[in-house]
């Protein structure tokens, strides 16, 4: 289900509306509804910028601080990607969100047989620090933070980011990287996993522990409800599962003797926006509340700064359609509106042509402009949490909060998130929901304009991004050149130390930084882990 299930009477009037998360929407709302859900102004809303943060994590909302715009960007070699980064920044984009190609995400160098045909295709190819030096050249890393959309080898990329920043003359205590670094959601929904779950979670713990002392402005994990929803989860499950995954990472670090208070303030999230506008707004308002309460009650976190749900609330690809692709421009605008009404701190949109391939400069800039004009042209900065006090929104926020807790309890009663992912329980559940969605779409119970209503069946011509095979050739040649010219003994020594640390269960990060500085490749480092940690086996879900 996308927007809602609409049940109609024989005259075609809507009689019943059920949101994807399972909440029924009434025809009208009044004060009696607030009473029925036990709404309490002080406890449920409070002030913006104060616990439980329902209204916003900042008192001034967008008055004090516009949202950060972070379009997902990267393709070809680091040269093409650097050019595109600069194009976006020149047009006013305020953050980066780096797309890596599949070989890089899977820990293979560009010259690996499995990388054939994939180098630079869906993101930027990165083999060594040399590539990061090119990719980030001329960008002020004190001013612009970088999301790194990478998971299984996020520890390697975070080490490489520190190495490049210091090489380019930036202070590691002032740079702000946000590696996605969420392996549990990869297993649920995006598939870029490599290592066994236990060592994979240990690596995440290492990055969190290391960032605390070494890169205090870095957000070492960005837990992605986003991809779980793309895989078929409901909005309530999207929040619930993300929070339980975040708890699993907290547990990994507190087992090492730290208090959650010391590190959880740097946790970040990535959530998805498409479908029902009201449900999205209620989801984020309820989500901020659930996360704050979860941290306070389960982990004893007290400092309000550490209780804030920070992150990227981004327009989702699942809402976009391949048919009549330019309609996706309008869809994106409404997702951006939902993000703003939800108090998104950072945001991005899928571009209108992304049902086909990665965006062209034109479509990427259209997405950026959509977000910029929402901030400046329609009054969304005027007041914080503008929908607060609506009988409907407040009732729905309370109901969503209850739903999120309910979904969390269901998983906890089944042994917790790590077990439910290892066994395939969560994957099975969301895959079935995805199937039901397709069935409803096919039956016409769910409407997509231009797909199953008002469809013309005509094919539209849009200019698409073209993959250039010379990028792969350039990248492979450059890698060969690197391997010829780097100090082989230093590389071998750094990899040997990495292997020792991996097996000794010491924090992996200092050794990774040394490997990066010696120009060891991503594939070489990832292979050390493959050897030491073993690889993950997908549970059967059928």
């Amino acid at each position, binding site marked *: 289900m996308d927007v809602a299930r609409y049940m109609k009477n024989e005259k075609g009037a809507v009689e019943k509306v059920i949101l994807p998360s399972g909440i029924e929407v009434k025809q009208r709302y009044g004060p009696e509804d607030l009473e029925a859900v036990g709404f309490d102004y002080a406890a449920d809303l409070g002030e913006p910028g104060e616990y439980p943060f329902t209204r916003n994590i900042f008192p001034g909302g967008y008055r004090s601080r516009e949202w950060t715009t972070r379009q997902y960007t990267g393709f070809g070699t680091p040269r093409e990607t650097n050019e595109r980064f600069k194009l976006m920044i020149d047009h006013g984009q305020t953050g980066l969100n780096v797309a890596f190609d599949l070989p890089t995400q899977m820990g293979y160098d560009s010259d690996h047989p499995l990388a054939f*045909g994939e180098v630079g295709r869906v993101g930027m190819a990165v083999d060594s620090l040399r590539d990061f030096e090119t990719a980030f050249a001329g960008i002020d890393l004190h001013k612009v933070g970088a999301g790194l959309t990478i998971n299984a080898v996020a520890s390697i990329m975070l080490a490489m980011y520190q190495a490049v920043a210091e090489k380019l003359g930036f202070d590691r205590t002032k740079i702000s990287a946000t590696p996605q670094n969420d392996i549990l959601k990869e297993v649920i929904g995006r*598939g870029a996993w490599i290592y066994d779950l236990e060592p994979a979670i240990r690596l995440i713990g290492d990055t969190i522990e290391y960032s605390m002392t070494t890169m205090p402005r870095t957000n070492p994990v960005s837990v992605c409800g986003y991809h779980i929803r793309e895989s078929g989860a409901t909005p309530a499950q999207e929040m619930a599962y993300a929070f339980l995954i975040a708890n699993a990472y907290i547990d990994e670090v507190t087992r090492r003797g730290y208090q959650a208070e010391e590190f959880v303030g740097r946790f970040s999230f990535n959530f998805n926006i498409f479908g029902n506008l009201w449900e999205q707004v209620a989801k984020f308002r309820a989500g901020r509340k659930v996360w704050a309460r979860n941290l306070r009650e389960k982990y004893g976190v007290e400092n309000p700064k550490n209780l804030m749900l920070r992150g990227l609330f981004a327009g989702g690809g699942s809402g976009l359609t391949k048919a009549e692709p330019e309609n996706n421009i309008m869809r994106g605008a409404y997702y951006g509106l939902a993000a703003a009404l939800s108090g998104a701190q950072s945001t991005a949109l899928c571009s209108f042509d992304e*049902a086909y391939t990665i965006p062209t400069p034109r479509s990427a800039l259209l997405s950026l402009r959509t977000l910029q004009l929402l901030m400046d042209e329609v009054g969304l900065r005027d007041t914080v949490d503008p929908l607060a006090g609506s009988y409907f929104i407040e009732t729905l926020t309370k109901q969503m909060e209850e739903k999120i807790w309910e979904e969390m309890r269901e998983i906890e009663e089944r042994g917790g998130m790590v077990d439910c992912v290892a066994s395939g329980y969560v*994957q099975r559940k969301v895959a079935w929901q995805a*199937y039901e969605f397709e069935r409803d779409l096919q039956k016409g119970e769910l409407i997509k304009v231009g797909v199953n209503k008002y469809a013309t069946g005509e094919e539209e011509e849009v200019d698409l991004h073209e993959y250039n095979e010379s990028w792969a050739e350039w990248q492979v040649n450059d890698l060969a050149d690197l391997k010829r010219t780097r100090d082989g003994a230093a590389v071998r020594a750094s990899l040997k130390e990495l292997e020792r640390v991996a097996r000794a269960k010491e924090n992996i990060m200092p050794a990774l930084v040394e490997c990066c500085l010696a120009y060891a490749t991503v594939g070489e480092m990832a292979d050390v882990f493959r050897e030491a940690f073993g690889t993950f086996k*997908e549970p059967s879900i059928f």
Partner: protein
Amino acid sequence: MSEHIKVLVAKPGLDGHDRGGKVMAIALKQAGMEVVYMGLHQTVEAIVQAAVQEDVDVIGLSIMTGGHLPICRKLMELLKAEGVEEVLVCVGGVIPRRDIPALEKMGVKGVFPGGSKIDDAVAFIRENVPARVRRA
């Protein structure tokens, strides 16, 4: 209908976006077919080997990265080398319309780009499954 149709569903290559592959696996099972779901990160060699070992009637691939032409070319070559080129091959995913003739020329019979209906894919398999493998 008493025929028994056995389908291998796999995702070749490094991409992990498996919603489409899983939805099709469920849909085929719901339609009464037997599904062998290989899961993620498969090589073409492993897919062909599994198809032979499992004696499947149909191979369904889900490809989102744009690599469908080289992947399918290799698959068809290997199927031929194994002498099982009569297996019905279908591909779904992010596939531009302009590539469909090239896929069909290679011998890929069913191409289902994003936005295709699951029932159409199920019906296509029923109608096109090779006669020699129709079992009672």
